[in-house]
């Protein structure tokens, strides 16, 4: 059932969807967490889905709270950080680079 809000029926969410979201968000969830979040997110989504039922005809979405435009900086070089500070907090580093684990997939 689709109402004019564009939200299908009761705004609920399945465990499968929660697992997909967790993958997109890079969160390793336990089965218990998946179950727990499925219930909680369902309840929250039910509450917040009211936005789609407000009359929004012709209303421009508001992405910013300030009416500024064209804010730029001049193309001038400023000091970079010393490389020791860049790498100071790195969990692993090698040859002045950040060392990261095996990358299995290519960049999208």
């Amino acid at each position, binding site marked *: 059932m689709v109402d004019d809000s564009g939200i299908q029926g009761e705004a609920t969410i399945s465990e499968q969807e929660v697992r997909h979201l967790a993958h*997109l968000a*890079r969160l390793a969830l336990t089965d218990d967490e998946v179950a727990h979040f499925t219930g909680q997110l369902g309840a929250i989504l039910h509450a917040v889905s009211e936005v789609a039922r407000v009359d929004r005809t012709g209303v421009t979405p508001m*992405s*910013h709270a*300030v009416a*500024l*435009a*064209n*804010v*730029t*900086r*001049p*193309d*001038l*070089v*400023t*000091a*970079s*950080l010393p*490389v020791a500070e*860049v*790498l100071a907090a790195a969990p692993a580093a*090698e*040859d*002045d*680079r*950040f*060392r*990261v*684990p*095996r*990358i*299995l*997939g*290519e*960049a*999208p």
Partner: protein
Amino acid sequence: MTEPVVDYAEVLTRYEPVLGLEVHVELATASKMFCGCATEFGAAPNTQTCPVCLGLPGALPVSNDTALASIVRIGLALNCTIAADSRFARKNYFYPDMPKDFQISQYDEPLCTDGWLDVPVVDPESQTDGVIRVGIERVHMEEDTGKLTHAGSTGRIHDAGYSLVDYNRSGIPLVEIVTRPITATGALAPQVARAYVTQLRDLLRALAVSDVRMEQGSLRCDVNVSLAPIGATAWGTRTETKNVNSLRSVERAVRYEMSRQAARLDAGQSIVQETRHFHEADGTTSAGRSKEQAEDYRYFPEPDLVPIQPDPAWVARLREDLPAAPHLRREQLHAEWGFTAAEMRDVVNAGAVELIAATVAAGTTPAGARKWWLGELARRATQLGVSAADLPITPAAVARIEQLVDAGTLTDTLARQVIEGVLAGEGEPDAVIAARDLQVVGGDGELGVAVDAALAAEPEVVERIRAGKHAAVGVIVGAVMKQTRGRADAARVRALVFERLGVVDEAAG
């Protein structure tokens, strides 16, 4: 694992190709897109990074005004509409070369849309010149990612035990230029793809917005190819071959994909919508990521950056300052340079118009610039199998070398050694000259000593010259050249010999 292919000529008897090209161009700004870090190519790892381009918690981006002017100029040169209201968006996906795990890009409100570029294409069969108009769908602004090095036996991602990240490239301004589907090219598809990228590269160089060095990655090309049976109304499924990094490769990638896709279609197989990798060594492509695994990028307006609303007066000023359209510019330069029609045709065919223009702008005569780009540098490029523009030498360096030759500091022979050094990555010309000790042996003092020594060692030759056998001077010149390890100017040596012997050189003008 090579895939079956169909002979190229045969492909065209059954299928019609559709192309799409996505070109990424790194802008040659002094600082990065959203912070003040330098953009120098080849700097030591992570020395050009700060809280902003490292994506440190709390850091915020602010747009580089020169980068925005550059993309608007690109849009104007590509005959695009410049948006009245444009916004940045976040493209969200996790990857270790991207320090915020999102890329600041543009999504549904790009700065430039709906343009075109006229591309000259020569039909190899009929040798007739033609022009194909390539539609430009959009030109948008984004930021580059860091650079990954894969540790392990082959340096390839899948074999690597781990990877290393250098964020110097992170945040360098990147402009993406996307064509509309290019249809009805028939057999010329590979040439059209190459000609488009060539023409675009020349245009970007004329705009002086980018180094457009494919081998350094400042111009990168993704090639989309699909085939449809001749007469079909719907297009076929396309593949996207990523990071095709030379002009020749663009042509080869299109040709290979057409042959490969035709073989699959002939065998009744479907084309998988996927990204593919191009292999320089054998000109083939191999499967990358399939689109079924595609990420959900969750684009949304970048809240840290406010909209860009280009002032029409500013856009008009940028439009006025654009260099002329390529064919008009060629005519104008031809007149300025005073080349013959044949010389100019050679320059155009060598793809050296903008290289010579940039070299002249850096302070040489047109003839001097042409001598190097069509001579020694063209030869080197052919040896290396790249185009002259892809040689790792800048027009400014070529201009410097020619100036030194002109001033008598270098001979042509020495200049060729300087070029060799620059191409070998030994640094800019002056650094190569110093390191290799390539200055012409200067002043008649030092040269005179060498000449005197040579004359003293060869009394018989001296007698022969005095007796009118002027050709014998070659022996003395050879000895002096040997003595100075080739750093002497032969003509000068010859003049000195005659001067010393009180003989009038009949060959001297």
